[in-house]
């Protein structure tokens, strides 16, 4: 049961972010929704590497033989966060640029590829 719930949470975060993106009427809002959808992957990755009753894989005051969660997925989530932050920043820069060229931040009003 707890296992099912654990995987429902990232799925819900992802879908709600996707819904926000699909219905977005503002480019900055759209980028924020993308961040929400992407944060589902942090939750998912960390949950996949979790082991019941395990501690964090930092062995400062416990022996290295103690049951610990997977360090590889945690290192991956760090990469994930860095990539997420850069994607958001780059998209926000594009949003600014689009506003300056087209005078709008509503995706509905943007005509596709006017060149």
């Amino acid at each position: 049961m707890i296992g099912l719930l654990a995987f429902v949470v990232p799925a819900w975060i992802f879908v709600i972010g996707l819904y926000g993106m699909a219905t977005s009427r503002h480019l900055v809002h759209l980028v924020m929704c993308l961040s929400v959808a992407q944060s589902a992957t942090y939750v998912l990755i960390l949950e996949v590497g979790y082991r019941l009753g395990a501690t964090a894989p930092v062995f400062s005051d416990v022996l290295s033989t103690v049951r610990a969660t997977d360090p590889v997925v945690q290192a991956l989530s760090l990469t994930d966060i860095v990539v997420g932050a850069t994607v958001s920043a780059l998209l926000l820069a594009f949003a600014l640029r689009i506003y300056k060229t087209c005078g709008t931040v509503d995706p509905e009003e943007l005509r596709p590829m006017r060149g």
Partner: protein
Amino acid sequence: MNARAVLGAVACALLLGMLVWGFAGLPPYGHYPGPYGTLINTVASHERQLPNAISAVNFDYRGADTLGEEFILFAAVAGITMVLRNDRKRTTPEPLPPTRGRPPAGRTEAVRLFSVAGVGVTIAFGVYLGIHPHLTPGGGFQGAAILAGFAALTFVGLGYDAFQRIAPQTRNEVFEAIGAGTYAVIGLATLAISGAFLTNVLPLGGNGQFFSAGTIPLINAFVALEVLAGFTLLFLEFARETRVEKEEEAGE
């Protein structure tokens, strides 16, 4: 029902199918098999003399991946600088709505006080987190991201001019290049010394000591430099956008 709704319904059904299919294939919750991570947990403590197995993965066992990750950040910052450049000469269709009615650059004493007071705390916490990648759940990425908060605080508390004086563009660009480049140079040096890219060639020291774990804290320091300079550069680029509006208004 119009075509758009039908298309949406089909896409939603497909997404649901894909999600269920994907989640069904995951290992059961709380029982991740992952032989690789388990092995690192067991051997990292004595092989690399550090308690933090995550940093061992990031900066040592999979150090080449982190090099790539660092260059993703580098490329993104370069891309943003390019996307936002040369806007000074361009005429915008109309000024950005939020800045239009706002009084120019007025800030209360309270905002100034808390921003400037926050700078010290931010730097102390960022440095503390950033220099202990091998000992605690910290590291260059996290520490420098917090440290870069000083840029935002300076901008909020003292304004664009002061911010630009404290952290000039060129200096940040040079630091960012040094941070990214030195990581690659360390990799090449270890390649020359030991014959494998990013092998830990430095003395490992004692587990739990500040000077331990060989190349890990060294690589981490340059990652921190790159992230700090990169983020500050980002803040500068975005802060300059508010500046353009002001200059145009002054010119009108």
